[in-house]
């Protein structure tokens, strides 16, 4: 059936100034409408918009029918061109066994909760040091720039053995990768310095391995069924560095804003800190997946009874799906004690968020420590004065001014 592109509705994208915690309000109407709606995306592609929980879970869970080939965010990132061939080691666009080969190689480095437990004391130290610096600097700070970004940057850099002083390389690559308007040329320019730097690390660590994830991935590659090329190892390492800090820092900041704006929920956590892991899952459900995900239909099929054709694009509105009342009771309410099993905040299916276990660890340690050491933490400006990032689908506050009466010492507060 031909579609007049100009007549299609635009894909609704989050407007946090208007709706600071939620998907754009019109998502609910799309979810309630039978079938699927074809929409025009900011990058110019047209796609079926999928908003219901069961449908989103089904599509993300079935890579045989719904491929990642276009790029995970081809609907919102201009540089993700579905027509481009998949580059060497560009695993985020692969499916099936080809993708699994990569996933199982970096999985043990950042996807094993028992190994990440060994990282917990390091994360605790980084969090405590940042709070000490905030305490020394005065009674106010920008939680995003002064805490969240340094903490997540230090942790991902530490995992891969990249010193904090070299962070500009992966901060710049992330700015290019997650800039909505970045062109193909801009992406290359923004990522090339990091790619060259990581290539250098791989050459060095092949000769002199350290205790870091890059060294271990090099060593394990030799024993793999199909060993990895240097470019493939570089892509995995650079991908973790590029994607492993601002995503977590943003949800940490947005999550803190939500909790400070819902004092009743914060009081529940103060009264019972054992709720913190559940609160982290609730924050993931509440905010996760706000940009949505792209898939391409592999063969003629249907989604929830609505036919879709081979080659069609599909946009999964993950945050809207996690606000589907058929999946979660009173879904727009932030409830740190609610059951969250099956939430899609880290995505679902083979491409589910690679860094989710690291993110859980960082968010859990941060929340516990804030409750303990900064009980007087509060917003320094009204919610209506908070400004949000623009030009990126990593949606969240551009800054989070916070204030406190005292920051308790790490030892004393413990």
């Amino acid at each position, binding site marked *: 059936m031909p579609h007049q592109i100009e007549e299609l509705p635009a894909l609704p994208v989050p407007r946090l100034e208007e709706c600071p915690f939620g998907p754009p309000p019109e998502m609910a109407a799309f979810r309630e409408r039978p079938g699927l709606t074809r929409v025009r995306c900011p990058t110019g592609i047209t796609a079926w918009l999928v908003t219901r929980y069961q449908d989103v879970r089904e599509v993300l869970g079935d890579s045989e029918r719904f491929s990642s080939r276009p790029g995970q965010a081809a609907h919102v990132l201009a540089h993700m061109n579905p027509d481009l061939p998949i580059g060497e080691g560009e695993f985020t666009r692969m499916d099936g066994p080809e993708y699994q080969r990569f*996933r*199982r*190689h970096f*999985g*043990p480095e950042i996807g094993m909760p*028992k190994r990440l437990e060994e990282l917990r004391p390091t994360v605790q130290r980084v969090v405590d040091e940042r709070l000490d610096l905030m305490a020394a600097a005065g009674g106010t700070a920008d939680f995003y720039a002064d805490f969240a970004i340094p903490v997540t940057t230090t942790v991902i850099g530490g995992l891969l053995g990249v010193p904090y002083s070299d962070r500009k390389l992966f901060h710049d690559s992330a700015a290019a990768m997650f800039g909505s308007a970045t062109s193909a040329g801009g992406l290359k320019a923004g990522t090339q310095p990091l790619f060259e730097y990581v290539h250098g690390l791989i050459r060095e660590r092949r000769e002199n391995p350290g205790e870091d994830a890059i060294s271990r991935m090099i060593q394990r590659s030799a024993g793999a069924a199909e060993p990895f090329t240097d470019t493939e190892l570089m892509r995995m390492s650079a991908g973790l560095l590029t994607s492993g800090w601002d995503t977590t820092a943003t949800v940490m900041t947005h999550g803190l804003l939500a909790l400070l704006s819902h004092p009743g929920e914060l009081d529940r956590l103060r009264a019972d800190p054992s709720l913190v892991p559940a609160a982290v899952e609730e924050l993931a459900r509440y905010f996760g997946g706000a940009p949505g995900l792209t898939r391409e239909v592999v063969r003629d099929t249907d989604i929830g009874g609505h036919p879709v054709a081979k080659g069609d694009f599909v946009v999964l509105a993950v945050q809207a799906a996690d606000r589907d009342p058929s999946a979660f009771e009173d879904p727009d309410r932030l409830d740190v004690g609610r059951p969250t*099993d099956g939430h899609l905040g880290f995505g679902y299916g083979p491409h589910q968020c690679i860094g989710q276990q690291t993110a*859980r660890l960082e968010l859990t340690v941060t929340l516990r420590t804030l409750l303990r050491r900064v009980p007087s933490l509060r917003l320094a400006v009204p919610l209506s004065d908070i400004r949000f990032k623009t030009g990126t689908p990593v949606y969240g506050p551009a800054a989070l001014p916070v204030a406190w009466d005292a920051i308790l010492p790490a030892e004393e507060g413990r």
Partner: protein
Amino acid sequence: MKVTIDADRCVASGMCAYSAPEVFDQSEEDGVVVLVQDSPSADQHEAVRTAARNCPAQVITLDQ
């Protein structure tokens, strides 16, 4: 409760070992699920159900 796994499809997300560490482990080599207990005790059932529901690759099957 009887637990079976289809490790061929596992993507090493770590969700099972996070939800029910007494029942699921992961290989050090590739992060793939290792079933520690195929008949978990009753106090583990809720955690195992969470693990099965949250497995992104639908690798875990529960009988009961």
